[in-house]
């Protein structure tokens, strides 16, 4: 189980708003919140001789974006 929250509240510097400064290579302001709740299950075993399998599944819910189920087999 996992729970994650990230809050960003980076406002633009006055120099960028007035046009005196123009940055490149990144946002000049970011305001937002990311919230993710997830559950993960993994099963690993040898059902027959010489054969090993690992099956896993993860369910994520991102607030405001939606949900995703991501299975994997290894």
């Amino acid at each position, binding site marked *: 189980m996992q729970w994650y929250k*990230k809050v*960003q509240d980076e406002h*633009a510097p006055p120099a*960028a708003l007035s046009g005196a400064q*123009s*940055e*490149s290579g*990144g*946002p*000049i*302001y*970011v*305001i*937002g*919140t*990311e919230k*993710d709740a997830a559950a993960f299950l993994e099963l690993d075993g040898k059902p027959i001789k*010489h*054969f*090993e*399998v*690992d099956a896993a599944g993860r369910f*994520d819910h*991102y607030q*405001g*974006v*939606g949900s*995703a*189920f*991501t*299975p*994997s*087999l*290894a």
Partner: protein
Amino acid sequence: MKYDPWHWIALRGTWGKDFRAPSAAEGGSSGELFGAGACTDPTLCPNPNAHSSSSIVTGPGDYSTQCSLQMTGFQAANPHLQNVKLTNWTAGLVLQPLRDVSLTGDYYNIKATNDIIPAFEAGGLGNYSSILRGAPIIQPYCPATYAAGCTSGERVKQVTPVGTSLALS
């Protein structure tokens, strides 16, 4: 999964799905400035390539100063973005010819859908990006009657029908 019928050889493979949610910078509230390079105003310079062999000739219907503009773009976040979805699989072989030597080879295949890319990169000027315009100003214009284009002396100064560009958004 892994299948090793004998101790010196093994076949292995994986399959999985993955996703990436839009970050706050991509789907929240954010702004980024970028250099869009040389752009042509499609309204004030509709025939930029009509006579591009000589720089002194302007195409008919063009405001010559609006044909090659070094524009600054503004990329805002998009709250309607969805998750980036990835599907990957691998297949490989492991050989162990000697006790202390092993050789491996794996094939990786990764496919992404709904990838998040800048709007300007996706469509250039016109598809997903538009020009922010200022006030109309007087600029040299090549009348449409000059079908072969205008030299500098044939251009007439007149007020642009729409404002000239300030930036892309």
